[in-house]
Every structure is written in C-alpha cells, then in structure tokens.
C-alpha cells in the first residue's frame, strides 16, 4: 500500500514537472520562431497623459538618489509627471535624502509612513490616496529607469481594456560576482522568453510590481492592495485578470536594477517571494481557474503561474518519495522499462528546461562567452529549491495560523562603490 502510494506520488510529480517542461519548451520555441506580439508605440507622442510615479522606500539610502535622478531626467514632459517617494519607516538617511530632493524639485513629493504596518503593499495604498492621475507607475528604489522608459511604458494604456503594464528588468550589477551573473541570466530567461511568450499567446503576463504601472481607478475598484501582502504584484495580477482586464508586457521597456550580491540576501528575497506568492496561490487559484472571463488556456496558465512557487516543495516531496522507495528497495526501475525511461528522460530533460530557456534568451540578447556559465545554473538549483520551499512552509504557517508575514528587506549595495 505504502509502496503503491509512493509510486503514485512519484508519477504525479513527474507528470506535473513534465507539464512545466513542455510549457518551457513551447514558450522558448514561440519566442524564437513565432510572430512576436508587441504593444503600442509612440501612441502618446503629442499629448501624453498626466502620470504619477511611486517609489516605495525602506532604508534605501544607498540607492534612493540614483533612482530619483534617473526619474527626474526622464524625457516625459515635466508638468505631467509627478514623482512620489514613499518613505516607509526608514531608519537610515533615506528621509534626509528625500527631503533634499523635495526641496530642490517641486515635482518630487514625499509621503512618510509611520505606523504599525511596514511593507510595500501598505506603502502603496497610503501613497495612492494622494495621487490624482489615473495612470500610476511603480519603481523600486534600486531601479534606474532610462530617459525614454516612462514614455514607452504608458503607451500600453492607449488600449482602454489594459489594466496594467510590465516592462523588462535588466540587472546593472551583473559583473559583480558569480551570483549576479547567474541572476542576470535568470532574469533574461524570465523576461525575454517567458513573459514575452505569455504575452504572445494571450496568456497571463505578470505585473511584476516594478518597472510597470496600473490604472488607479481600477485598483480602487478592486479594493486596493492587501496591506499585508508580501507579493502585491502577483495579487494585483490575479485581481486584474479575474476582473476581465488585460496586462501588457512590453519587452522594449527595459529598466536597470540591482540584483542581490550575496547568497544570504538572495535567499531572503526568494523566501519572501515564495511566501507571498503562495499566499496568493491559496487565495486566488480557485477563483482564477473558474473565472468565466478567462479562456481555457488562460485558466490553465493561471494555475501554472500561481503554482510555480509550489513546484520546488512538490519536487522535493517527490524526491523524498524516491529516496524512501530506494531505501525500501522498491524504486520503480524494477517496475517497467517504459516508466524507468520516462523518469530518466525527465531527469535529463526536465531538470534542464529552465537552462535552454535562459540560453535562448541569452542568444537573443547577443551573449556569447558568458553562455559557458550555463552549467552553473544547476549549481543554484538546490539553493533555489530550498529557499522557495522555506517560503512555502512560511506561507502554509501563515494560512494555518492566520498570521501576517514580515517584509524582509533585500540588502542594497548602491552604485557608488
């Protein structure tokens, strides 16, 4: 009985992973060979709308100035661009830096938050109360947007059915160490291939919480962000699609960010993402899969998107099932060549799926020698699996105990080094 259950679980895990593998392959294939879908360009050349850029900050002294300087030098008409820097209970010199910018630049407004709740979702909710414009863009403080980025991003809103837009994230500290190089490759695969392919297929491109924006009135209509959300971006994505709106992914809208430079920092970041994402999974999976406004492929993609941070713990559970079967001497290899072949093929190909997605993205980006780092992506595999699994466990604890998550800040290093 136990052996049969373990075997069944193993088969189910391999089946789930095979679905993701197939998805990776189809996405990659579509990005390389199929027609690419692109959003509007130059739609607001003559009369761009008034917009507000929100920059939530908590202890961002190392990067705040660079981000604000980049926003202030944007090509967007100054009289139509308001920058709201949200100081979310910083204890470093962020407040002083923001005050200096507000004094020197009338376009920069500072919202200071003092309260029991800390976190991006709460900061955005409070800041949004003071926003007049309908289109709101959000940048994290470690991002340095290029001069034309805002103009590129807002083009998507010319379509009245578009609720949010998302641009491409490109690390600027790639050359710092091995971790930053590998993260740069991961980002490349995630945006150049994965997001673009989801947009190509009219599936669910994700609003990523930064280098993007949304319609304020839509967010108000949807009840704002959950103040305690750790993945307010995934939550908004789910809400927008559930309400029948669209999200545009604009691959041309590139923005530069600082990726974590230490493994410790990366671990915390992944753990927080996983915790927040899995809470959204719990709250929205059923609603999205049954949303009448979504097509069948969109419903399938919504499940796969929301489940992506639950996959590592599922994979680890499958691996533990394999270990138990091995210790019992009942590994399914004895059960049949076909099943054994499938498991072995999955081991060779399934584990490799993210790698060829990254490789294809890097080829499209013009990379050559750095592709030799591809094998090191596998070096990150157990690290990613474990950090995501701890976040998953946190999320399960949150749900069972009805507790709220704590926002673990990602450490910044800053440009001036």
């Amino acid at each position, binding site marked *: 009985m136990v052996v049969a259950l373990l075997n069944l679980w193993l088969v189910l895990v391999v089946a789930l992973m095979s679905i993701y593998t197939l998805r990776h*392959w189809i996405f*990659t*294939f579509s*990005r*390389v*060979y*199929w027609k*690419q879908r*692109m959003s509007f360009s130059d739609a607001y050349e003559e009369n761009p709308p008034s917009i507000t850029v929100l920059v939530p900050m908590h202890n961002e002294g190392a990067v705040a100035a660079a981000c604000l300087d980049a926003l202030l030098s944007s090509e967007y008409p100054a009289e139509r661009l308001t920058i709201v820097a949200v100081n979310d209970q910083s204890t470093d010199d962020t407040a002083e830096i923001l005050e200096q910018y507000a004094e020197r630049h009338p376009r920069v407004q500072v919202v200071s938050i003092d309260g029991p709740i800390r976190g991006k979702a709460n900061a955005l909710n409070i800041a949004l109360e003071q926003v007049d414009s309908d289109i709101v863009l959000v940048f994290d403080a470690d991002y340095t947007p290029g001069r034309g980025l805002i103009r590129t991003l807002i083009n998507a809103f010319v379509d009245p059915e578009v609720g949010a837009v998302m641009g*491409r994230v490109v690390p600027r500290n790639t050359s710092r160490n091995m971790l930053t190089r590998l993260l740069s490759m991961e980002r490349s695969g995630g945006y*150049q291939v994965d997001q673009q392919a989801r947009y190509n297929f009219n599936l669910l491109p994700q609003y990523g919480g930064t280098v993007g924006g949304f319609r304020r009135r839509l967010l108000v209509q949807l009840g704002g962000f959950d103040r305690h959300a750790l993945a307010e971006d995934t939550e908004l994505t789910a809400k927008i699609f559930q309400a029948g709106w669209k999200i545009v992914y604009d*691959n*041309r809208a*590139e923005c530069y960010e600082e990726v974590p430079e230490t*493994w*410790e920092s990366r671990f915390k970041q992944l753990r927080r993402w996983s915790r927040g994402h899995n809470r959204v999974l719990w709250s929205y999976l059923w609603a999205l899969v049954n949303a009448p406004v979504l097509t069948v492929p969109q419903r399938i993609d919504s499940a796969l998107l929301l489940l992506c941070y639950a996959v590592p713990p599922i994979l680890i559970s499958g*691996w533990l099932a*394999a*270990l138990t079967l*091995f*210790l*019992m*001497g*009942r590994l399914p*290899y004895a059960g049949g*060549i076909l099943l*054994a*072949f499938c498991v*072995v*093929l999955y*081991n*060779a*190909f399934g*584990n*490799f799926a993210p*790698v*060829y997605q990254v*490789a*294809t993205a*890097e*080829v*499209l*980006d*013009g*990379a*050559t*020698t750095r*592709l*030799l*780092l*591809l*094998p090191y*992506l*596998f*070096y*990150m595999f*157990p*690290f990613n699996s*474990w*950090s995501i699994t701890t976040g998953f466990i946190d999320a399960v604890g949150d749900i069972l105990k009805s507790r709220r998550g704590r926002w673990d800040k990602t450490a910044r290093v800053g440009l001036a080094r």
Partner: protein
Amino acid sequence: MATPGAAGARVTIRPHRSYRTLRVSRVNWLATIITLPVGMMLAYVVLFLVWPRASAWVTSLLNGSTPVNTSIADNFLWIGSTIPVPTMPPTGIRGALNVAAACAALLIVGGVLRKRSPLVLWIMGNLIVLLLAALWYFFEGSAAYDAPTFMLLLERTSVLMILCAPIFSVIVAALLPFNVVERSVMFVMLIGLNFGMSLLRIAAFAIFLDHFGVLSEANLYLFFGPLIDVVYFILAYSLCVVSLSRRISRSEEVWEWL
C-alpha cells in the same frame, strides 16, 4: 539588415534585442526530424557494440588494482555488460547509529551557523540523505540493495541515460538554428560524455562503496549520479550554444525584425 550608407558604403543595422527574433529554415526542421530515429539507432548501435567490451575493460582494471574483486554479467535491452561488484565493509547497528549521530550533529551546527550558500545547502542535503539512510539501516538492520543489485541498478540507469541522449539532443537543438556541424558535435559530445562518464561513474561508485559501505548508496544514486548527468548534459549544450551564438552574431540573415 544592410542598407546603403552615405558614401555608398553598406551600413549594418542590427536590431536591438527587444526587436529581433530568428529565422527558421526547412533544413532546420529536416535535421530535427531526421536526427531522432537516426540518433537513437546510432546510440543503440554504439551501446550494443562498444558497451560490453568497455564495461568489461573497466571491470578488469578495477579487479586488478582495487579490492573490488568480483563481477557480474547483465543483459539489459540485449546490451551485454560486465559490472564490478565491490566488497562493501560490513556496517553494524552501532556504526549506523554513529553515522546518524554525526550527521545530526553536523546538521545542527549548519542550522545554527545559518550559512545559506549553494555549497552549504548541497552538503546539508547530502547529510540529510545519509542520516535517513543510517536511521533506516538502524531500524531495518539491513540495506535494501546489496552490492550486486545496486551496481546492476546503476548500470541499467546508465544504459537508459545514453539512450535518452539523442532525444535530449533533438529536443534542445530544435529551439535554436544549429547547423549540421553543431548538431553533430552536440550529439557526439552527448553520447561520448554520457558513455565515458557512465563508465567512470560505475568505477568510481564501486570504489566509493568499497570504502564507505552500504550507507552511501542513496547519496551516490540520488545525489551524485543525477548531478553528474545534468552537468555534462548542460556542458555539451552550452559549448554548442556558444558556437552558435558567435556564428549568428556575425550572420545578418539569421536575424529577423519583429
């Protein structure tokens, strides 16, 4: 993407990465369709002809130089093999308990230090497997796989992996415009590396078991084995992708504007 320049010179305008995609050709599809059956056939022929001799050679080397002093013959999918069988040192109940205690202590130290790098997590993962294997042995009193059964499992897995290589090669090669040379090199590298590494793994694991005994079986089979497989698969692929990327970065007709 060449256009006439100011003084009649050709000016090359390469599309920005956001605006470009790659052309697919009929040759590419043909290569994809042909490679799979031909590749699998070739892999099987190589296995059928070379694997029996190579595995016998490795076994004879081990028999001459290490305490690995027995061997067994296998015939899996009509492919003959001679596999070394190590003489595993006996592991008593007390030994298993000592290993479990040592693993638990190291895991606690690792947990207290809270160092979370890939290497540390990789070591801790192995310690967890070793701990579970030791506890299993402690309660059951014996291991599920004796040395011949384990080596047989290892050898059959290796044969299956080599047969998987052409499928892998075809599936990944379909995603980028590899030329015939790159496809062939990837295929040969995959089969060659797979073949060589499989033999090396059988020999290395036999020696390892010979020294560390039955408790290390799970680590070898579920941690080191897949790790070795994936690394050389990706290595072969990445070398060919670098070649492709260098080639197409100079070749304008490959790129297509969106």
